[in-house]
């Protein structure tokens, strides 16, 4: 009897703990892989959500053919929804989508340039409050140009634009000249008193390798391609302006986000020749000081790199030459940082977190000046001290010409 009662209880429990109310089968979900937010001329929120087509994606290289059609089906569909709020706009899409949109896999969030300039405050709450959005995995970008075009830029491999963006982000350490930022970090910077957020920039550029050939069977090279470039600086929730690619790395040096990349600087004693160093490790800290002339920020950067390319006959097998190169590439790094600082001061956006560094070191003084920080920041003096070291020089000593 007792056993039977237990059994009945167990069976009843199964009914309860299966979570029937929230059952969501994989095949009825539309996994949003990239999302763009824009405002339409009527000031409504306009969302573009990219959903992959698993039937095409899963079919392998040649499987993606729509039955009865002569051209291959696109492996994705970009839905557009408009509405007064983000949530409303997203639900608008359900009128067109046969799948329930699901956002936990989303890794790319793109704001249109116009939207970013006007301020994104209205949509941030949703992004933070939402249960499904993974703030640590979603990268924030500002689009130069029409976001719909970015999300519909074809490519023969990595056919899903969303995944292509994600993969480009993965290799950002190849140059460290574009600045994708996780939504979590973006929101944190926004919430901090002495730091302004930044975001990556994404654009579509034409592809010069695209050549139209007569009689070729294979599809031509795509005429345009997605490119991640530079950074967008914000002042509060409004975009203040763009950094170019050199300036962006200047910003990333200070933020400790440089993971690699190339530094090109003039070859000593050789007019017009260049030396290239690949960054291996880098690390920076900001040291604020209060002096009679006002606030001085010292950015201390330590960098280690490998020599990868020498133009001109420079005997890099001599230690004193390496020393000279160390000095020159330190100067090159310093120039990048200063370029970023000047641009940021011009735009009035403290994306470096100088204010935050000041707050940490001088909390009492910070309380007095934090209201005026936006006015103080453009005027502060910034010094850069770089200790750069070349550790390895590749497979040969002096360049080939010098051996003769």
């Amino acid at each position, binding site marked *: 009897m007792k056993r039977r009662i237990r059994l009945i209880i167990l069976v009843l429990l199964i009914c309860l703990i299966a979570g029937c*109310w929230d059952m969501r089968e994989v095949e009825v979900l539309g996994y949003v892989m990239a999302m763009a937010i824009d405002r339409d001329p009527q000031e409504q929120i306009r969302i573009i959500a990219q959903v992959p087509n698993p039937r095409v994606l899963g079919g392998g290289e040649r499987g993606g053919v729509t039955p009865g059609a002569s051209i291959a089906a696109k492996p994705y569909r970009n839905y557009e929804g408009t509405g007064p709020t983000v949530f409303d706009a997203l639900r608008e899409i359900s009128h067109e989508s046969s799948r329930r949109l699901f956002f936990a896999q989303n890794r790319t969030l793109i704001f249109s340039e116009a939207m970013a300039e006007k301020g994104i405050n209205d949509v941030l709450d949703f992004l933070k409050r939402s*249960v499904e959005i993974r*703030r640590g995995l979603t990268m924030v970008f500002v689009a130069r140009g029409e976001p719909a075009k970015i999300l519909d830029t074809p490519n023969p491999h990595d056919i899903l634009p969303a995944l292509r963006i994600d993969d480009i982000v993965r290799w950002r350490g190849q140059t460290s000249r574009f600045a994708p930022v996780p939504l979590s970090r973006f929101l944190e910077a926004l919430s901090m008193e002495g730091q302004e957020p930044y975001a990556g920039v994404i654009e579509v550029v034409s592809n010069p390798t695209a050549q139209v050939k007569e009689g070729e069977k294979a599809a031509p090279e795509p005429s345009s391609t997605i490119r991640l470039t530079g950074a967008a600086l914000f002042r509060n929730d409004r975009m203040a302006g763009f950094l170019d690619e050199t300036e962006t790395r200047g910003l990333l040096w200070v933020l400790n986000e440089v993971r690699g990349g190339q530094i090109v600087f003039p070859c000593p004693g050789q007019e017009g020749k260049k030396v290239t160093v690949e960054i291996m490790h880098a690390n920076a800290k900001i040291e604020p000081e209060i002096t009679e002339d006002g606030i001085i920020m010292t950015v201390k950067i330590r960098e280690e790199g490998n020599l990868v390319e020498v133009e001109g006959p420079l005997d890099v097998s001599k230690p004193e030459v390496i020393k000279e190169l160390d000095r020159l590439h330190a100067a090159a790094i310093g120039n990048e940082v200063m370029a970023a600082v000047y641009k940021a001061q011009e735009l009035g956006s403290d994306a470096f977190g100088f204010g935050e560094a000041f707050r940490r070191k001088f909390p009492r003084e910070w309380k007095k000046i934090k209201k005026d920080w936006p006015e103080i920041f453009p005027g502060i003096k910034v010094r850069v001290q770089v200790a750069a070291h070349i550790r390895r020089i590749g497979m040969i000593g002096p360049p080939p010409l010098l051996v003769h």
Partner: protein
Amino acid sequence: MREEGKISAYQAMVYQVSIVLATAILFVPAITTKHAKQDAWLSVIIACIFGCLQVCTAVSLARRFPNASVVQYAPLILGKVPGKVVGFVYLFYFFYVGYFILQEFAALMCSSYMLRTPSVVFMLVLSLLAAYAAYGGLEVICRTSSIVLTVVVATLVLTAALIVKDIKIWRFLPVLENGFNPVLLGAISPGGWFGETAVILMLYPFINNKEKVVKTSFLAILILFITMEVVVTGAIGLLGPTETASFLFPTFNMARRIKLEALPFLERLDAFFMMVWVAAMLIKLTTFFFAGVLALSQWLNVKDYRPLILPSMAIMIALAVQAWKNITELFAFSGEVFPLTIIFVNFIITGFLLIIAGIRNISTGNT
């Protein structure tokens, strides 16, 4: 009384840790950080000291009456009627925290995992399991919680190990930005949680090596201190103080944030974390519920507590359903009212009993 056999002091320690852990790791980071900002880790240290004080009070009281629980000896100390009233406060406290836990559990499940499932379903499932565990008795509960606790602590350690590379020391600076008061304010809530270890007042008669209880109680506080410190510093170091305070469940956001570029399969561990946490929550509810039912049976002078299980469970669920209308009420309550009420029971009343017992020199033991 036909009680639950005997447990060892270490099992009592597991009980003491389990009764605090599950909700503490979930709610302490947000509540403490709201006041203390980046100094929340200091608040936890202060709370720990306060917790030591509370567990000291409770153990000293328990040692005076080695063969009875607080509900049984309160009338001896205060006289029949006031003693019964105090006994009722204790037993109500266990149910009160019990239904608070049910609501918290439902709040998390309904706001971040299963949005359409009615909250009463979660309460029902968890309570039925807790009732089943309570039927098993004290020894069963202690052994189950030993297993669950091991898994929970291991998971926390694993989580900490996976996020440690993303923890930034500068998020903890400047230290004491707004002076010491916010730190103290932030310590109240975790201090209350530490005080829940005073459940030793109910367990003491069943412990067979009573001489170790002082040691194991402090050990329980230490384990709790370390786990709370791990989640607080983890959340602040990873999310930053303002972000930690703005999330309702920062610990889950922390678990969600695990990201290893080299090992992508270790991402999204929050489902695993969730699973472990639900188990911990079940144990937490069971410990409170069992203590409550046991106290009720002793208060009513009933020989066996088992017939009381289902009725009290029903009452507890009913109380939980009517108590808080929405999550904002629940959170305002858990931040502002709840810690004070449990400190009132665990520290003020227990301390009061200890003082009266000391003055009247009442004791039934030989210590």
